[in-house]
C-alpha cells in the first residue's frame, strides 16, 4: 500500500480522481473527492455489506433447498406480482417504466423445473422462443 502524508487543504490525484483532505476533526477526517460521474465511490462498510449479501443470495439461489419451492401455494410476497407493474397506479412518485419482463430470455407459465426433472421446458407466453433442455450425462 502506498502511504502519503498530506495536510488539510492538500490534495492528491488517483488517475482523474482528485482527493482532498478537507478538515481534521478530532478522530475524523473529512475527505473531498472530485471524480467523473462513472467512478463509483462507496464507504467500505457498505460495499462489503453488499458484497456479502450478493454472495449469500447467489449461494442460496443455487443451493438445492431453495426456500421458494416450499412456499405455500397461496402465498404472496410483500411485492404485488408482475401484473401490477406498469398498470399505472396513478401515483406520481411511481415512475412509469416498462417492467423487467422484456428482459426475459423466455417465459414459462410456472417457471423452470429444477435439475433432475424430466421433459423439455416449453415456452409459455413467448412461444416464439423455444428452449431446449439438453440432457446432462448425470441424468442418464
Amino acid at each position, binding site marked *: 500500500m502506498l502511504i502519503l502524508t498530506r495536510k488539510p487543504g492538500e490534495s492528491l490525484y488517483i488517475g482523474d480522481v482528485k482527493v482532498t483532505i478537507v478538515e481534521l476533526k478530532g478522530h475524523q477526517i473529512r475527505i473531498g473527492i472530485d471524480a467523473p*460521474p*462513472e467512478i*463509483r465511490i*462507496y*464507504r467500505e462498510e*457498505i*460495499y462489503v*455489506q*453488499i458484497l456479502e*449479501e*450478493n454472495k449469500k*443470495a*447467489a449461494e*442460496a*439461489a*443455487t443451493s438445492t*433447498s*431453495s*426456500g*421458494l*419451492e416450499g412456499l*405455500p401455494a*397461496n402465498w*404472496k*410476497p*410483500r*411485492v*404485488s*406480482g*408482475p401484473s401490477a*407493474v*406498469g398498470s399505472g*397506479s396513478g*401515483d406520481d*412518485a*411511481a*415512475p412509469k*417504466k416498462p*417492467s*423487467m*419482463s422484456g*428482459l*426475459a*430470455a*423466455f*417465459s*414459462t407459465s*410456472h*417457471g*423452470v*423445473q*429444477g*435439475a433432475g426433472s424430466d421433459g423439455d*421446458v416449453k415456452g409459455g407466453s413467448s412461444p416464439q*422462443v*423455444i*428452449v*431446449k*433442455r*439438453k440432457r446432462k450425462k448425470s441424468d442418464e
Partner: protein
Amino acid sequence: MSDESGAKVPSIVIHSTRFGDLEVPAASVIEFPSGLIGFPKATKFVMFDHKPPFSWLHSAEDPSLAFVVVDGFEFAPEFTLKPPYGDRDSDLQEGDEYAILVIVTVRPDPKQTTANLKAPLFVNLKNRKGVQVIYDNPKFSTRFSLWVEPAEGEEKKAEPTAPAGADLKDKK
C-alpha cells in the same frame, strides 16, 4: 432456433448446474460490464421465470452462478430511486427506458426471504447493459423482508404492502 415466422434466430447454449443446458436467443443476454459486486467476472446473464413474481438471473458463463430477482418497480412508490444516468457500464441516459432488478436472498425458511433494496441492478433496455448500484441511504435495507402470512382459504388479493411512505427498512 427460429422465431414464429420460422426465421433463424442466433442462439447460445448456457450451462447450468441446476437446469442442465438451456438454449436461449443470443439477443436475450444481459450484460453487466463490471460484473456484480463481489462477482467482477460475471458479466453475462440471461433471465427467465421462477415462481412468480420471481425470476432467475442466471450467469451465461458460470453454470453454478444464479440469482433470484424481483422487479424493482414492484416496490414503488416507496422505492423510488434516481437512476444512474451517465453510468459508463449501462450507458443509461435520461429518457432511456430501464428495468430495476432487486436481488432476493432465499433461505431454507421462506419466512426469511429478503430483498436487497440497497443495491438494485439497473438494466438499460436499449442495449441490455446493466450495473449494480448501491444506494447509501438508511431507508433501504439489504434485507427487506418479503414475507407476509399467506391468505387463508380462497385466493385473496394480496394485502396492501407497506403503507405509503413507510420506510423500506427492515429488521435484520
